[in-house]
């Protein structure tokens, strides 16, 4: 089901991470991580639990602050100047494992408020764009509901729409499907596949190997705060280099077997 894809080697760099180190107290969560993401590239990050995947992508929009190393996003070096940071965060959309929709706002309002408040877009225009995106994630008829009234999969699709409302140039996903039931996973993955097909730059932490095979340009495997291996999916799944990767892949397959 995997077709070879090619990203322009000369495409501008969207995200450059350079010798990144991050500690939580004394715990060394990211060890000298370096990664370059080209514009339009789709990267899937995987690895065992606690390996620092979430931490890595949360550093990209500075939900976590790193201590050493540089991160350059869309040509801008990240520091902790609040204004510049907000600017970058607007250009980098993010989807969380637990959706984090605003429960006191209707679905539509969830999608328009960020536009009107942060991009200064007029209410009517914001609404039109939001409805377009809701249409795209097949949630238009739920625009008037509140998040609490929707299923997890529906909420996640709205979270994606909300992130897209900011017209981001890069999208980050942190295990968007891991809190969902199987049927719902399919709904959400479908939306993500669509998005990938349109050429969005994506950095995606997920354990959905099917998704990785289908859309990723590169799969990055992390363990214990380090990038152990990165390779195009066909190579990654068929001939993993590092023994740790092999072990991880075996485990996933075994797990699948016992469950069946």
């Amino acid at each position, binding site marked *: 089901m995997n077709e070879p894809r090619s990203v322009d080697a000369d495409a501008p760099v969207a995200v450059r991470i*350079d*010798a990144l*180190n991050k500690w939580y107290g004394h715990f060394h969560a990211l060890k000298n991580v370096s990664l370059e993401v080209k514009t339009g590239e789709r990267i899937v990050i995987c690895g065992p639990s606690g390996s620092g995947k979430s931490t890595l992508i949360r550093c990209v929009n500075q939900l976590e602050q790193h*201590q*050493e*190393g*540089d991160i350059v996003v869309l040509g801008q070096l990240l*520091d902790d100047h*609040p204004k510049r940071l907000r600017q970058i965060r607007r250009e980098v959309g993010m989807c969380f494992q637990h959706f984090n929709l605003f429960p006191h706002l209707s679905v539509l309002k969830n999608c328009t408020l960020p536009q009107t408040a942060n991009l200064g877009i007029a209410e009517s225009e914001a609404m039109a764009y939001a409805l377009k995106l809701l249409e795209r994630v097949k949630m238009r008829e739920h625009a008037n509901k509140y998040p609490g009234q929707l299923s997890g999969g529906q909420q996640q699709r709205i979270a994606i729409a909300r992130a897209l409302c900011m017209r981001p140039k890069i999208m980050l996903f942190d295990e968007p499907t891991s809190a969902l039931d199987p049927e719902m996973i399919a709904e959400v993955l479908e939306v993500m596949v669509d998005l990938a097909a349109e050429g969005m730059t994506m950095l995606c932490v997920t354990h959905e190997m099917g998704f990785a095979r289908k859309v990723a340009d590169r799969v990055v495997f992390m363990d214990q705060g380090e990038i152990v291996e990165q390779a195009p999916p066909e190579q990654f799944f068929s001939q993993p280099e590092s023994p740790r990767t092999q072990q991880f892949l075996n485990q996933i397959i075994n797990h699948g077997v016992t469950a069946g």
Partner: protein
Amino acid sequence: MSSLSASRRPHPALRWVHKQLFPNLLQSILTLATLGLLLWSVPKVLDWLIFSATFVGSSKADCVGGGACWLPVVNRIDLFVYGFYPDTETWRVNLAFVLAGAIIPLLYFKRIDRRWVLGYMMLLPFVMWWLLKGGLGLSSVSSTQFAGILVTVFLGVIGMLFALPMGILLALGRRSKKPAIKLLCVLYIELVRSVPVITLLFMASLMVQLFLPEGVTIDILARVLIVLVMFTAAYMAETIRGGLQGMAKGQYEAAKALGFSYWKTMSVIILPQVLRNTIPPLLTQFIGLFKETTLVVVVGVLDVVGIAMSTTSAPEWIGLEHEVYLFLAMFFFVICFALSRYARHLEKQLEKSR
């Protein structure tokens, strides 16, 4: 690379100051204003409280330092602590204080079997009663001799510990499936919770005697104690009910499936867990009761506030209200604050152990 980033990111202490104190203009102004206020006021306050204050002397005339005059408190400290308790028997009061205070460390040590702690708490009010009031070998002391901190602690601790069983029964009653019992408990709890303590104290002071047969009298301290117990029990019932509701349904079902009877289920399965989980809120409730005991002064019981008020009206100390009331405020603050920190600590421990 990393040297570059190191130079860009300032020293952690500086970063802390920047982030925590001066992140933007408004915050900076607020910080500076607060700092200024502190620098201006703290030395003055300390000077008045301590450095220029008078701590030794025998009359108001000795207060010449220009600061606070702590003499009424210093000279009357025995009165504040022991009230009119006979001098030769004050060891009983001290012992009672120590016994009451011992609950606090007992709650702390997880190694000690909870049943011992519970037994201690059940026994304590009776022991304290016996120690303070006398009888059974100790010379008996009339409750008219009770005043000051002694009364405050007596009412607080004994009131709380007597209220606990009553609160538990009320909570169980409120969750009972028997409509009559449930109704009675709900009525009682809601009625007591909806009126101010003062009216209940007035009731103790003015009405209770009317409802007793002729010739039967209960002294005012006991009446006030009863009212405080009734009052605290109603609030406590709500706390415990919260704990009961928070109990997983599975615990009841497992007990049922094993053939436990209602009272056995409650006493060995449910309540031990509920009580353990509700220790922090119960402690908070105790702080509330401890503060509430001060209202007994309204019906003429000389608790620590009563002694303070009568001190400020003694001819030799007139005009020193601020010092006396400040002492009162500090007394309550120290005790209640320490207890509330402790409750918070226990709560955190509980959260961790889950």
